[in-house]
């Protein structure tokens, strides 16, 4: 008993940290309709600023608290509402998730850029002194300020929020605003203000959580950042994103059970090294598979959505024949010029860069197919790419197989994994599906890719020239360029064919409305598995191509952040078309290369650019490039019409 207590009690602050975030996730979902995984990042901002003010500027604790929690917290929440989430139509689940994830990735990268490198070591405690042992549980299990702060914070926050949501006027209005802001306006309530208030309240809670948890060192900054996030998401999922008390209890249990198991399991066993880190992921996957409430997450729809005009059709569909011919000619001329330059005068650095861009383009085509055409959001595309890369590496290593052949085998493996993932999550849609793929990606990051048998451990797999016959590894040879170009053209052509063919039409129907698609006889489960499998294969091919350009394939290289970045980049550029994917791939490497010339402090900005991309995306869900294309097409059409003096047909435009 004494031993059990000794193992279990240290789990309490972890569990409370998970609980605070789980409750925050449920709160934001209930009051704003957004599953805001960026909540952790919001907490981090307040904690960061608090520590920065106290340590570096010697502010008194109370003043720093007021600034970081009472001002910055709600302010950040309001800013998120004003500049991001307000612009996203509530039915656009993809945009909401992608935006939240970009915050999660972008904000921690931005802070060091703004404030210089900092850490939170010296963050003072507000309520209890962390080092003081206040009393003992049983005979000798000490309870110090960390435990007390964590428990107090969790309980107080839970009680306050439940009361706010269930018994107050504001709580009722916030819940109503989530379902239909317009219907709420018809009741004479300013729905925008209600939603803004909700974001401010969530921001305040996030700030409070960040500052109070910072000294306990189970914070967003610790290396178990991912575990914190996943445990919180899992607890929120088990509560079906509805009940805050359930979420809190489950979160505490996850923390306590993990630490208790950690105490009892022998450190050398498989259970300790693989199963324990995977525990929160398994809880999350289990919740997604078995909690019925999660299947209906996106179903409560706004009855007044019929007031919105339909989204504008893609540019390619509306541009006139003449403009179309012009665009095509210019495109092929550019392509030809690019190929000739590559083979003749292009400096090797830039050739490498563009090669990489083409490899990325192949991976991005997988997003185009899955998200753009079929309307399914996957946050595991980098994982799929990694599966193919490691498969090719191991096959070459053990069997001496040609890396390109191994890459093809790897692509098949990635395709199978994607198919299985789709099969497992057949009953999920929208947010549920995104979380499932995120869980899979994180599971691979934490438990599978680091394994010796997969990636050769932390050292990774070192590529050897003899694995490739064609001199492909030689940086200056053009062989690799030709191979990537060929693969890219084949993949792009393939995706374009799929989009235009029967399958593409089925997938597009599924994207429009699953119910409607089922109505016209589309076999939804099969189409979805097919879309995932095809997309997995594309990601795998791209992953193998990316791997060839490196000397070592390391386990951390295909992590969930990269998947996130992929999705954000593609959806911001334009997820609907093959051109969009290629522009995204080339654009990414060109920006990265240009960043090389930027000052050291700005290196972290690549991720910030993603966040900015998300900002642009929130305003124009069809993609930035798509938007510009529309503008230019309209301009060109006007010019052409004037020249021919033809009776100008009123172009149907998306911009009134």
């Amino acid at each position, binding site marked *: 008993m004494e031993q059990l207590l000794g193992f279990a009690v240290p789990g309490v602050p972890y569990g409370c940290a998970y609980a605070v975030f789980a409750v925050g996730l449920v709160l934001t979902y209930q009051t704003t309709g957004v599953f805001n995984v960026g909540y952790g990042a919001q907490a981090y901002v307040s904690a960061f600023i608090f520590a920065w003010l106290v340590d570096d500027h010697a502010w008194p604790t109370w003043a720093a608290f007021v600034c970081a929690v009472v001002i910055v917290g709600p302010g950040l929440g309001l800013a998120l509402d004003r500049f991001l989430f307000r612009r996203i139509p509530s039915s656009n689940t993809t945009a909401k998730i992608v935006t939240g994830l970009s915050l999660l990735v972008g904000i921690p990268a931005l802070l060091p850029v703004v404030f210089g490198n900092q850490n939170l070591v010296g963050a003072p405690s507000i309520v209890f002194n962390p080092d003081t042992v206040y009393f003992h549980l049983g005979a000798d299990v000490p309870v110090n300020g960390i435990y007390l702060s964590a428990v107090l914070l969790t309980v107080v926050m839970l009680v306050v929020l439940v009361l706010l949501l269930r018994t107050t006027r504001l709580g009722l209005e916030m819940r109503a605003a989530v*379902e239909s802001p317009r219907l709420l306006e018809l009741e004479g309530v*300013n729905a925008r203000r209600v939603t803004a208030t909700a974001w401010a309240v969530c921001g305040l809670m996030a700030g409070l959580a960040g500052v109070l948890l910072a000294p306990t060192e189970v914070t967003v900054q610790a290396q178990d950042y991912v575990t914190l996030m996943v445990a919180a998401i899992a607890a929120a999922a088990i509560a079906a994103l509805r009940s805050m008390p359930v979420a809190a209890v489950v979160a505490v249990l996850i923390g306590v059970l993990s630490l208790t198991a950690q105490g009892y399991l022998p450190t050398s066993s498989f259970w300790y090294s693989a199963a324990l880190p995977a525990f929160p992921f398994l809880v999350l996957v289990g919740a997604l598979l078995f909690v019925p409430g999660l299947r209906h997450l996106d179903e409560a729809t706004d*009855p007044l959505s019929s007031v919105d005009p*339909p989204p504008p059709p893609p540019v390619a569909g509306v541009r006139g024949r003449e403009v179309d011919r012009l665009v095509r000619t210019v495109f092929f001329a550019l392509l030809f010029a690019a190929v000739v330059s590559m083979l003749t005068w292009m400096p090797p650095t830039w050739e490498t860069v563009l090669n990489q861009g083409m490899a990325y383009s192949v991976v991005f085509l997988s997003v185009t197919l899955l998200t753009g055409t079929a309307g399914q959001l996957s946050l595991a595309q980098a994982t799929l790419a990694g599966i193919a890369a490691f498969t090719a590496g191991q096959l070459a290593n053990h069997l001496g197989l040609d890396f390109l052949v191994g890459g093809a085998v790897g692509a098949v493996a990635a395709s199978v994994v994607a198919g299985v993932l789709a099969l497992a999550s057949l009953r999920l849609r929208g947010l549920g599906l995104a979380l499932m793929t995120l869980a899979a990606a994180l599971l691979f990051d934490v438990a599978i890719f680091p394994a010796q048998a997969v990636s050769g451990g932390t050292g990774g797999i070192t590529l050897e020239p003899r694995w490739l016959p064609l001199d492909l590894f030689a940086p200056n040879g053009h062989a690799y360029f030709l191979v990537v170009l060929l693969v890219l053209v084949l993949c792009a052509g393939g995706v374009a064919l799929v989009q235009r063919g029967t399958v593409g039409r089925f997938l597009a129907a599924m994207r429009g409305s699953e119910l409607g698609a089922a109505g016209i006889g589309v076999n939804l489960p099969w189409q979805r598995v097919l879309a995932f499998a095809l997309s997995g294969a594309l990601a795998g091919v791209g992953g193998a191509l990316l791997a060839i350009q490196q000397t070592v394939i390391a386990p951390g290289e295909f992590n969930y952040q990269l998947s996130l970045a992929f999705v954000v980049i593609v959806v911001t550029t334009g997820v609907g078309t093959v051109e969009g994917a290629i522009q995204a791939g080339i654009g990414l490497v060109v920006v990265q290369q240009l960043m090389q010339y930027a000052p050291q402090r700005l290196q972290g900005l690549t991720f910030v650019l993603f966040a900015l991309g998300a900002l642009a995306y929130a305003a124009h869900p069809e993609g930035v490039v798509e938007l510009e294309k529309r503008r230019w097409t309209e301009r060109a059409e006007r010019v052409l019409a004037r020249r021919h003096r033809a009776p100008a047909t009123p172009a149907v435009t998306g911009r009134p």
Partner: protein
Amino acid sequence: MTGDDRPILELDEVSAAYGPYRALFGVSFSVARGAVVALLGPNGAGKSTVARVASGLVPASSGSVRVDGRDVAGEPAWRIARFGLAHVPEGRGVFDSLSVEENLVLSFQRRGGRVQISASLEQAYERFPLLKERRQDRAGTLSGGQQRLLSLAKVLVAPPKVLVADELSLGLAPGVVDDVYAGLADVRREGTALVVVEQQVDRALALASSAVVLERGTVAYFGPPSGARAAVEEVVDRRARGRRQAASS
């Protein structure tokens, strides 16, 4: 009734569009205090759009909308609602995810404190005992007819100056339609002016003091109910002829 003879709702040359798709072209009519106007016309004529422009859900691109003499063009929907215009939208007009009681409270709490809210609830339950039975259930589990009654209950307890009711009878069994129209008659008795959007011409005209017939976003008829039926038939006729021509060419 007050001696005030300004119309309670007045549309003057109102045009409106959904993004690039234009839906109304210079619609004008007015609703006198306490009057009932039937808003008729075939599917897609623009009836719901008129209702939405009146309540501010869709902005008018030109023309003016006056509620109780006040120009509300450009005002957000919530402010127009506070000026005294209630709009029960087409289809579902209640919050699915809230309970029946929460739906009612949401509506009442703008006007008073806790005491007043519970008095209002009493009143609503007295008029519609069925709602009392189901007050803890989510409104999404109510049948279509019960949802319309819930919408009417809100309006009955705190009567607005004008109620725009969009196709209240759509998809209901005849018996339930009777209940809904009984509710509408009650609302009228409270002194509220009504704009009744309907496909069921007879029902609406029986209640109406004047009628508007819309055709492709314009007013084809505005006058006493007696002439409305002929106007509707003419519009339907014209549409059928247009279709036939389109098909043959």
